[in-house]
């Protein structure tokens, strides 16, 4: 047997985890090998001492049957409360979801939906060459709105003069219109 295999078997044996049939075979081998026997004894002694050290604290006293019953009832009660709490949460979540869906469906089908208007530029009206700002989106500054209004008014005036100039500059082309004028 290889030494490393022997060591593994001896450790398993010391830890009490060797199958009985393997244990018998190992015992036969150890009986014929004094070095292996010494090693087996040393390992068994180490594990035994470790067990004593690990379990040296006073073992808890077995609890009385009645106390166990009371404890178990407490465990059962806690578990029922927790389960009830979880069920309650699920129910509440389902109710909330249902209400939300109902509200949404009602909004879509029956009731008028509030109109949402997005204004991307100031609405202007020009009266007599003076621009009046009717509404303005909040994301433009007052200065910008005023500038836009002035620019718009100037542009309208300019267009008016330009058309008049065109009429005057080409009298032959639009004779009918010119007659009307």
């Amino acid at each position, binding site marked *: 047997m290889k*030494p490393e295999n022997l060591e*593994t078997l001896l*450790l398993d044996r010391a830890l009490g985890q060797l199958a009985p049939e393997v244990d018998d075979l190992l015992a036969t081998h150890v009986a014929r090998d004094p070095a292996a026997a010494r090693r087996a004894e040393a*390992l068994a002694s*180490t594990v035994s001492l*470790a067990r004593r*050290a690990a379990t040296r604290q006073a073992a808890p006293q077995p609890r009385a049957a009645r106390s166990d019953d009371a*404890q*178990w009832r407490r465990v059962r009660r806690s578990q029922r409360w927790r389960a009830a709490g979880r069920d309650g949460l699920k129910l509440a979540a389902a109710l909330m979801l249902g209400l939300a869906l109902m509200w949404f469906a009602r909004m879509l089908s029956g009731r008028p939906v509030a109109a949402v208007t997005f204004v991307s530029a100031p609405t202007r009206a020009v009266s007599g060459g003076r621009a009046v700002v009717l509404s303005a989106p909040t994301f433009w500054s007052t200065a910008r709105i005023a500038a836009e209004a002035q620019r718009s008014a100037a542009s309208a005036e300019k267009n008016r003069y330009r058309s008049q100039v065109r009429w005057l500059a080409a009298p032959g082309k639009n004779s009918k219109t010119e007659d009307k004028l």
Partner: protein
Amino acid sequence: MAGPMNPGSTQLEDLYRDLAPALLGYFRRRPALAGAAEDLLHDTFVRALEHRERLEASVSARAYVFGIARHVGSDALRRRRPTEEFVAAPAAPLPEADERLEAMHAAIGDLPEPQRETLLLRLQQELSYEEIAEVLGVPVGTVRSRLHGAVRRLQEILNPSQSEATNQHETGKP
């Protein structure tokens, strides 16, 4: 106790009667958890009841419940963030002073955490390799390796001369 089981509450009640003392011991041996051992035992079985269907898939009821206890203990430690040292355990007074036992206790305390935890599950709770593997969520080979490593290390610490002789025996050198 460790055989195939019906995951009913009656079965768990029997399990509670069987395992409560061992689990109390498991918690009480950890200084940071000792004060809350009964509450932790309670939490362990509440969780076991909540997931009782998982009992069927476990190697043994004992391993399953110890696995839950380990998680409950870890959660409690995480919440409280205590400093836990095995060597600082409030040990009961020994009937007779034993220096070797004290040395072994200190040596176990010096083991790396995975080896120590595995060794204590074997020595204190008498769990099999397979059960320990389930409790810790590691392969059986890892459990074996940790245990072997722990025993070798303890022997090196306590009997350095024997360890040298063993190495010579293993390598075949005189």
